[in-house]
């Protein structure tokens, strides 16, 4: 297993796209969060705005890049035929995918933690000046804020792993990107489109993005379709399901 990880690490380090993707993840996340923090206002108590979700709004764009990183981690090998060499060197499919998941997940986790940490910090510093004060019922330096940051970081990592799993299933990075981003954005859009409240709520519960992003909430927790940790669990199930199916198909199919 250690050799597999080292091999994957060497490949990742030599891929010129990797630093760009991680940099893009950090920049896009911080940029969207920055704009949101800069424009958010809470004029009165109970203004219905969640400071943690405002600070972490960058996740909406950052997840697309995290998914792309996950897709390209394996999709690139299918594009060039490198996958045959890889599978010759590491014939154990499960081990290969586990090594890839570790080598992908580690850097994405660190990059997300940094980007979201910076965004969160900016929010904690700036938002009280925009009306998110204790007088309006907000406590920004709380455990809930730390939990939101933690959940969002794990969420981005899980999205990258979902990208990896889907690529293992469809074996083409372009299609995989379409499928992953479709899975992420489609559920919220579909939930808005169906007029039936119960169906919309169910769609928000099973959709990876809507469920996963519920874990960032720090206010109105009782009205969430899912409890924060359960929401993250839904995303983890999606990622685990995709990776599991990917391993099964890798075993059954030729490269």
């Amino acid at each position, binding site marked *: 297993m250690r050799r597999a990880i080292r091999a994957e690490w060497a490949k990742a380090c030599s891929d010129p796209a990797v630093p760009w993707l991680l940099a893009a993840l950090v920049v896009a996340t911080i940029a969207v969060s920055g704009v*949101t923090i800069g424009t*958010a206002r809470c004029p009165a108590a109970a203004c*219905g705005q969640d400071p943690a*979700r405002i600070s972490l*709004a960058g996740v909406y764009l950052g997840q697309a890049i995290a998914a792309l990183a996950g897709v390209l981690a394996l999709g690139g090998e299918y594009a060039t035929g490198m996958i045959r060499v890889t599978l010759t060197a590491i014939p154990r499919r499960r081990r290969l995918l586990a090594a890839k998941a570790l080598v992908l997940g580690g850097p994405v986790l660190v990059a997300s933690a940094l980007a979201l940490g910076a965004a969160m910090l900016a929010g904690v510093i700036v938002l009280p000046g925009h009306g998110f004060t204790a007088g309006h019922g907000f406590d920004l330096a709380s455990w809930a804020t730390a939990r939101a940051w933690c959940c969002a970081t794990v969420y981005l990592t899980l999205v990258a792993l979902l990208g990896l799993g889907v690529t293992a299933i469809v074996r083409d*990075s372009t299609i995989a990107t379409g499928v992953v981003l479709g899975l992420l954005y489609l559920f919220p859009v579909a939930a808005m489109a169906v007029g*039936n409240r119960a169906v919309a709520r169910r769609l928000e519960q099973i959709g990876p993005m809507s469920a996963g992003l519920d874990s960032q909430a720090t206010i109105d927790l009782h009205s969430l*379709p899912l409890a924060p940790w359960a929401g993250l669990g839904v995303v983890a199930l999606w990622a685990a399901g995709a990776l599991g199916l990917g391993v099964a198909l890798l075993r059954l199919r030729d490269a």
Partner: protein
Amino acid sequence: MIRAEWMKFRSVRGWVIAVVVAAVAIVGFAVEGGSQGSCFGNSCAQLTGPGGEAVSDSFYFVHQPLAGNGAITARVTSLTSAVPVPHGGTQRAVVPWAKAGIILTASLAGGSAYAAIMVTGSHGIRMQDDYTGDVAGPAVHTDWLRLTRSGSTVTGYASPDGTHWTRVGAVTLPALPATVQGGLFTTSPQYTQTSLGVAAITGDASQSTAVFDHAALTWPAAAWTGTNVDGSSGPAAGPATGYTRAGGQFTVTGSGDIGPVTYGPSGIGTTPAQTLAGAFIALIILAVTGAMFITAEYRRGLIRVTLAACPRRGRVLAAKALVTGLVAFVVALAGTAVAVPLGQRVLRSHGVYLPPLTVLTEGRMIVGTAAALALCAVLAVAIGTVARRGAAAVAAVIALIAAPYVLSASIPVLPLGAGDWLMRVTPAAAFAVEQTVVQYPQVDDVYAPAYGYFPLPAWAGFAVLCAWTAVFLALALVTLNRRDA
């Protein structure tokens, strides 16, 4: 050249299946609907105002007939509102557009011409007329209101003390008869609370109570009558309304709104844009196909053959863009042409109220959405040419269109202004071609793209996508000419 590219497209079975699936998805979402309403037959026929637009006209009115010219003055000493809480009962709340003030109206029938000056829940003094007119009054604290009529001109004044008056606005109402109904009114619109996600949007009828005193008329005094003017449709029984009088003090409780109808979570029914929810899946499929149309050539090395056969690279790019755009347009048009009429019919048959559409608007929705999807596919070709990686092109197209769409609809995540801004500058602006309804600042609603409200007019939104596509096609041309294949 175009024929060669068309051959390539046609010969990949996966792409042909994909575009057919895209068309089916557009129709499928329109037919599925999932919405249920309670408007059957004419039960939800909307009142129309003097301007012909659909309006709500429900308020509690303490009135008397007033012949000819004159003025009414009154002081609003308090305006309090209550909203229902989930498990029965009500609680006090601020309803931003709760209204209490003085109104002159042509008749007690719903949809009559009127002019009114009022105190609102949190938007200060306003003078409104004929449902769509809205003028803000002085920002300082004022609670004395006056409305004067002179012929067909009605002028509104406000004052902090009853002696120093500021003119708020004057309106001309040609439809006002010689004898109008004038007096004090209170109304309180649907209350909407957006929490997290769309399923958490809750709303219900609110109720407001205003206390008036120093009511004075220049007309000869007559008896006051209390009427609950109810121009609302549907069976929903609102909260209790009425008025009491103690000496010179009137306490008036009302519910409803006097203003234009809006659609979506806190309005009625939905907009025809809902029939095009499937365009979103089509967008993803067409973007993937468009990106693969060029990146597959790079991946297989076919691009070298293509460029050897046609060394003028601009032509290759133009042919690819043209074939992708035309195929996407035809397929999407087939989908939208069925989805829009059929989807409306399905929604209406489920009792969902939809605003009536002119043939021209419906045609714009159908052709515009198909054209927007086609341009998105061309954008994917262009980005795919620049990046030479389909994954990046697909991620860019979907994220640039989907992320703003989702963000701007999830109101609590993104401040409303920022969401509007995203829908103006990103390619997602193009979906403004689905816009069929007007957004009114004086009516609170969830004005999100998902409910058919876009910050830009249709043509401008479409132009934004055209600009994005043009920029990326130019970039693609430059990189294609500069680079080795």
